[in-house]
């Protein structure tokens, strides 16, 4: 709109000069309803066509890793909740798994089952919130309310288990702090029944809607090679046609005991990423059912020394969070605090591929592409 926009490019930034020389620059965010937080995208446009995109992140930066270096191993657990606040269980899980690997602790079997159940329920909750906000980005309000209804039920389950609805801090190094309450099993089964019956409802409202399909198909394509080069993970990688799921390809915990499908897309567009998540919502429910059926009795806490002081060493552990490969890299120097504590957040890495996805899209598609990556700024900015 404004010819003077070109002069507001920050220092050190230069886009390649285009052929036509009629580009204009548009800031999307940091205050914009569709950036899911405070993300700023600087878009170079030729008319409505996106020529280039520079993301600016860090508005929520709190130097999580520095905080981690100044806390002892147990104190870090509640801090990890704040990374990906829509899937806190996975942050806990990835972190405690890293410490367990470092110390050579194996949690008891029942704790592993609890982790799988809570984790997959968390994946359902996270995908539900993603589906709702994605519908909202494309102008469908109603799906948002539907998804939140079911998400509330998952949060009720979590509340009955941990007493918290968002930041659970429920995993412990070496196991779980307390067992499921008596009511959990029946509640969980009835939730799954209700939830599985709602999925066709979402399909009728969103998936089968022609306008929605037109908005999602064929835009924001990411090729297989690009997806691997950008080290995308989770639904973004699978949407690009790579059959890669850590639960299947690098099974941690007890994931080799469950039967589930790993959906993949073909063209790597927004639609494929949508469908991958949509099918995962079903598969997660299946995993929870199997886990509930197989659940053994026994201890929930392994043998853990009173003070957590891992021997010097380093470890990189990863789990498949709803957004992809969530990794924790921990360097121990034998003190009660980690010497270096690094989080490999999936949304951060997936977001770095957005310029490749957006090239050649229209401005209005930007919202859809951003929604299909499923970003959480708390995790990206750390």
């Amino acid at each position: 709109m404004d010819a003077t926009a070109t002069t507001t490019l920050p220092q050190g930034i230069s886009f390649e000069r285009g052929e036509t020389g009629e580009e204009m620059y548009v800031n999307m965010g940091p205050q914009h309803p569709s950036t899911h937080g405070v993300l700023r995208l600087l878009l170079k446009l030729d008319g409505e066509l996106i020529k280039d995109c520079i993301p600016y992140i860090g508005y929520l930066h709190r130097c999580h890793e520095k905080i981690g270096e100044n806390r002892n191993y147990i104190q870090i657990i509640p801090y990890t909740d704040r990374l990906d606040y829509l899937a806190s269980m996975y942050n806990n899980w990835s972190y405690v798994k890293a410490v367990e690997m470092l110390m050579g602790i194996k949690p008891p079997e029942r704790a592993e089952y609890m982790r799988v159940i809570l984790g997959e329920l968390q994946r359902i909750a996270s995908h539900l919130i993603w589906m709702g906000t994605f519908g909202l980005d494309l102008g469908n309000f109603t799906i948002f309310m539907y998804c939140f209804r079911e998400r509330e039920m998952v949060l009720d389950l979590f509340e009955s288990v941990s007493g918290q609805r968002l930041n659970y801090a429920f995993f412990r190094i070496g196991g779980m702090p307390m067992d499921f309450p008596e009511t959990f099993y029946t509640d969980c089964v009835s939730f799954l029944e209700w939830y599985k019956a709602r999925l066709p409802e979402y399909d009728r409202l969103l998936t089968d809607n022609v306008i929605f399909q037109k908005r999602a198909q064929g835009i924001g394509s990411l090729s297989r090679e690009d997806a691997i080069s950008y080290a995308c993970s989770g639904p973004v990688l699978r949407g690009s046609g790579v059959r890669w799921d850590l639960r299947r390809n690098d099974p941690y915990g007890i994931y080799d005991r469950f039967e589930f499908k790993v959906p993949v897309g073909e063209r790597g567009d927004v639609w494929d990423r949508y469908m991958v998540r949509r099918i995962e919502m079903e598969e997660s429910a299946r995993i929870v059912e199997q886990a509930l059926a197989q659940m053994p009795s026994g201890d929930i806490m392994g043998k853990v020394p009173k003070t957590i002081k891992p021997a010097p060493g380093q470890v990189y552990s990863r789990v498949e969070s709803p957004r992809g490969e969530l990794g924790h890299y921990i360097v121990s120097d034998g003190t009660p605090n980690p010497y270096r504590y690094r989080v490999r957040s999936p949304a951060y890495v997936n977001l770095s591929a957005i310029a490749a996805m957006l090239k050649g899209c229209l401005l209005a598609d930007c919202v859809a592409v951003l929604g299909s990556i499923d970003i959480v700024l708390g995790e990206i900015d750390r």
Partner: protein
Amino acid sequence: MKPEEVLEKLKGQFGDAVREAEVKDQTVYLTADGARNLEMCRALHGMGFTYLNCLSGVDWKDRFEVVYNISSLTFPTKVHLRVTTSHDDPRVRSVTPLWATANWHERETWDLLGIRFDGHPDHRRILLSEDWVGHPLRKDYVDEGRYVRFTPYGEAKKAAAKAEHAAAEHKAAPATGEATSEPGKMAAKAAAPAAQAAAKPEAEAPGEAESGEA
């Protein structure tokens, strides 16, 4: 490809550059010389390690380490490669040409630890604002306590120039900082803590003036 094979191949190709090597489970733990990180990564990439999981940096007080967690999508072997570089002038070659994902990881490592990546296409800070002084994840980083210096783009340069000026006046700025593209910040950071402390009131002055006006 088995972990042992990977190790053998690398040792054959790079010889002494591989300092420590160990195979645990499916993972090859390697420590290597920072000067040859790009060649080593290229060799690994050629072996089928097409997926860079994570790239981090560690400040060991006397040296810096850049850590590559590399894996493959076709076989289970993983590589945990650590390359060392000096503490005074930490710099390694960028691996962005091999893995596009390294772009942001390297920017973050520069931002938080101050390790330079030569050949990086877009060497800027990523999480912190452009005019931040210092690299917070360094072990000797002194927290300023209060952050008042955020300025819009145009004034960032001015603030940096001011900090450089202050550092130069105290004659503590070593030559290493001059070679970088952001001399002001580097100089201010590389300066001895005393110089930094002296530079602080200078640098903070505009911020306080602003808040006074507001």
